[in-house]
């Protein structure tokens, strides 16, 4: 199997790697680049734990080939905070205890970031449907929705 040479941008940094043609972006991030913030919960696009943003589109990195990343702009959870300054969503997830086990949290944060970028003032229903691609088994979603609502208010004020 011939490896594919890929040149891409991840969290603003230029990155080059060699991957197999059938290797997913999630596998590349986790196993080749050490970016283990994106999690594999299902590998079939049903749980959202591997969410990343590619060229301003929210995607499941398990449903993208590593080879497809060529020339793209990729955002992962590792790039969400600015230095030691947490993103308002990260801060609000902490304050609202919007995580218990935390395995779904990176995916939720990325999906919520994408949601608020496209809709800065979502209703509760818009948040719930906007985040329906991310499964959480611990929280019943209540505190996640509240954290996103609170973060949206903070971000509008900023």
């Amino acid at each position, binding site marked *: 199997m011939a490896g594919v040479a890929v040149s891409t941008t991840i969290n603003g940094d230029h990155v080059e790697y060699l991957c*197999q043609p059938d290797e997913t972006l999630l596998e590349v991030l*986790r196993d080749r680049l050490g*970016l*283990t*913030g*994106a*999690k*594999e*919960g*299902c*590998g*079939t696009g*049903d*749980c959202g*734990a591997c969410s990343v943003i590619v060229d301003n589109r929210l995607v499941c990195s398990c449903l993208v080939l590593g080879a497809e990343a060529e020339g793209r702009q990729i955002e*992962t*959870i*590792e790039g*969400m*905070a600015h230095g030691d300054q*947490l993103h308002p969503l*990260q801060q609000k*997830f*902490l*304050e*609202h*205890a919007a*995580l*218990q*086990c*935390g*395995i*779904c*949290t*990176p995916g939720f*944060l990325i999906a919520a970031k994408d949601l608020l970028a496209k809709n800065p003032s979502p209703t*509760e*229903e818009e*948040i*719930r*449907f906007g*985040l*329906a*691609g*991310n*499964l*959480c*088994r*611990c*929280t*019943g*979603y*209540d*505190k*996640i*929705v*509240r954290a996103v609502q609170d973060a949206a208010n903070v971000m509008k004020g900023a």
Partner: protein
Amino acid sequence: MNFDPRYSNRSFSSVGTRPIRPDGVDKVTGRARYGADFNMAGQLVGRILRSPHAHAVIKKIDTSKAEKLAGVKAVITAKDLPDLTDGDAAMYDILDNCMARKKALYDGHAVAAVAAIDARTARQALKLIEVDYEVLPHVTDVDEAMKHHAPLINDAIFTEGLEEKPVKPSNVTKRTQYGHGDVHQGFAQADFVVERSFKTEQTHQGYIEPHACVASVNPDGTAELWVCTQGHFVYRQHCAQLLGMEASKLRVTSSEIGGGFGGKTHVWAEPVALALSRKAGRPVKLVMTREEVFRASGPTSATSIDVKIGAKKDGTITAAEATLRYSCGPYAGMWAEIGAMTAFACYKLENVKTVGYEVLVNRPKTAAYRAPSAPMAAFAVESAVDELAKEIGMDPVDFRIKNAAQEGTRASYGPVYGPIGIGPTLEAVKNHPHMKAPLGLNQGRGMACGFWFNFGGQTCTDLNIGMDGSVSLAVGTVDVGGSRASLSLVAAEELGIDYSHVKAIVADTSSLGYNDMTDGSRGTFSSSMATISAARNAIKVLRERAAQMWDIGVDDVAWEKGHAVAKGEKHGNLGKLSLKEIAAASGKTGGPIAGHSELVADGAGVSFATHICDIEVDPETGSTRVLRYTVVQDAGKAVHPTYVEGQYQGGAAQGIGWALNEEYIYGKDGRLQNPGFLDYRIPVCSDLPMIDTQILEIPNPNHPYGVRGVGETSIVPPLAAIANAVSNAVGVRMSHIPMSPPRILAALEAEREG
């Protein structure tokens, strides 16, 4: 140590506040390391070959082709995990479940495993392993498995607990019975009797993180295991026993855990990973796929339950009886027994009898799932209780209040209750605005109660005070949902310092004494007790050091609000010494200051909850929508109320999923049809409303702060609360969980056709 665990009324400064958890930042930045996030140098990829048959004799396994494939470093079968269980039947079952020995007992049962240089090679190697199966008839339904002609899963099983010793083997491993009084006499006194039958389908814990571990066995026989687990000490014990190692030679580190809910209390692939590593001589990482998680780990029992309850016109229950049949998978369990114990635990009953049957089926081995066995029993009982209230013409809440257990009641499973919360939760529900809110067309409201025992068990903590006065707390109970925050609060409370100066970690098995696992809602209950004990031991040392610094007797030194205070008139000029000051001097006063604790946390207070639920049903499609949901539960004392609320909400959401859509679906071939999150339908964000919570605090007399376990009870009432709501919405009693749209529509159509 003379630790007194009894509750004493006190005011709190840290406990009851809601600080940010110590592991929080790692989890919102993606830095927290879960099972699959850890790697070792030279690590191989392990994969498991699983049976495609529900029931088959393994006649022969030929691994020679797989072994010859370039990049394959080890191939193992049951031969590589010899039976070292020495007559321990429970351990033998664990071994057989990890790697089938003579028969494959369910679709997904492990039969061989490989370790290779990468995932692709490992996958190819699995395809090269040839297994010669003799397919046997199978049975997956709990009622079918009890029939005389059912295929026998284990012909060495003769039902235990029968009056007469059976002469023929059976799929029923055990009969158990609980209760007191005389139910025949009780039913004779009843003016109304309700008798109903119920079924619940099998569900999975559905944790988002698949099982994952990295095992490394060294040539000298020592080994390390990194694993997502609810109990690394138990995993060490089991793995060491199955592999013939001394426990102390195996160091197990629990990773951050991406959900467990009981499903990560059992070893599945860890002994296999260790055996692969031993054979390959290299570390092996083994991560289950989601499909493997569904096919081969987890699930709870499927059940079939009959309930009969009788009451007088005034609403007094005169007798209650239930027969509970629980599937165990292919190995003996005590799932029906727990169901039989919990079924009527909410009520004060003169005459009660419950009988449980443990039933073997060709499905994966039943595992604990949050208050295991209780939700199904509560579904059956609380549905029948609602029906009975209706027949008598009483409000369902009033009917329950009239019959609720209280302090001094003899529980249906034996013991006499201390102070308990069932009555208060019912009173709170009766007065809750939710109960008075108007309902629209096709909408119904239901409520139901639930009970869980809560466990205590063996616990060990270390509390170390640094020279800067900050505190490191090492606990051995895995943190599944914020317990490091709660335990830090408890340490801060007891020492009288600020929460920010305490940092709690979960220690590995070589750094701390044995701990039972985080199950039975015991994490915060038992580790907080051990933390209080450890802190009190540390305070004793702090007082001694202060006495030394002051050169006075230790009996003249008290500990108040984080300071040593000299007592008595003659020491009036000594002022106070802070923990920080004492710690700073520790190098000159006798060395490091620490408090340790090893105890068995007895007396986990039982826990009760009452839930209210509003549901709308689309009568044309059977579709349901949860409109409003309220949880009222007794926490004893909420150490970190936000995480207590989180437990209430999470349990309710899991119960809602179970009630409405989640189920294992088997084909006629005995294969699981829906091993993925697409068709095993756990609730998504848009399925649920906000889940309101009300925390009641009825102190547990057996814990210094009054803490009770809170993690599990919240999954007990939802099945029944939702069934009652659906039944009230459409006027048809739903007796089969999940109440999926096809089941509701079929029930409605049957009703319409009369």
